């Protein structure tokens, strides 16, 4: 599972489109505003590669839309922008930690063997790390299904690698141009 060259090309095209939308005002803005536009258009470009088929990409588009609704709509106007922005995401799962902790305490009292304790400890650690993953994957907190979370994570990582690779090439090339 690697970023493909077609993914790279598609990302670049979409990112350039986003930058073009922002371009008219590019000379009158602060470095900070410009950086934000560069990053937001890169995120929308990355998310739109998935054409709404993954949870993380829909969540990312929604999140970006709250920061720059106009940019997102412009960039997605070819691909059913409305549908993607207003798409209903699954309900947030509320994890009643106190109740889970209490019932786990009761269960714990019953299993006394060392190996059982070790296994239980390992399971708790995995649970904690899985929750950590939910915090870094867009829309992760909406994925109660662990299997789905892992699948989305893999796809998200490949997409991030595409984003980083293309952006790095462009920035390196641009900096080399300046240093000539």
């Amino acid at each position, binding site marked *: *599972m690697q970023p493909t060259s077609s993914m790279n090309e598609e990302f670049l095209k979409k990112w350039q489109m986003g930058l073009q939308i922002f371009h008219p005002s590019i000379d009158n803005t602060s*470095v900070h505003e410009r950086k934000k536009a560069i990053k937001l258009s890169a995120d929308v470009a990355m998310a739109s590669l998935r054409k709404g088929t993954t949870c993380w990409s829909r969540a990312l588009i929604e999140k970006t839309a709250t920061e720059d609704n106009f940019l997102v709509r412009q960039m997605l106007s070819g691909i059913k922008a409305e549908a993607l922005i207003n798409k209903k995401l699954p309900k947030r799962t509320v994890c009643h930690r106190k109740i889970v902790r209490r019932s786990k305490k009761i269960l714990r009292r019953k299993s006394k063997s060392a190996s059982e304790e070790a296994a239980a400890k*390992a399971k708790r650690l995995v649970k*904690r790390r899985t929750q950590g993953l939910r915090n870094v994957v867009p829309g992760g907190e909406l994925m109660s299904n662990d299997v789905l979370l892992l699948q989305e994570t*893999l796809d998200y*990582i490949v997409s991030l690698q595409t984003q*980083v690779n293309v952006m790095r090439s*462009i*920035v390196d090339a641009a*900096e080399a141009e300046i240093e000539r």
Partner: protein
Amino acid sequence: MSNRRSRQSSSAPRISDDQMIDLVTKLRQILPEIGQRRRSDKVSASKVLQETCNYIRNLNREVDNLSERLSQLLESVDEDSPEAAVIRSLLM
């Protein structure tokens, strides 16, 4: 798919051992450090998940840095210079 050892709750299935092994394999191909380790099956699930989180955070940080560098670059380039034209052609 065998779920012999993992208990299945109604709304949130636990990751079964088979699924975790499958994930470890896939992640190993993607993550830089884990791929180097030769002790194949002994890499714990929690370690894989932790490395994954760190890797994602690093990638996001790099995107942020690259955006900053690019923004600075555009700031420093004189609008009418040939460099600006080249850069513009890269970006648009």
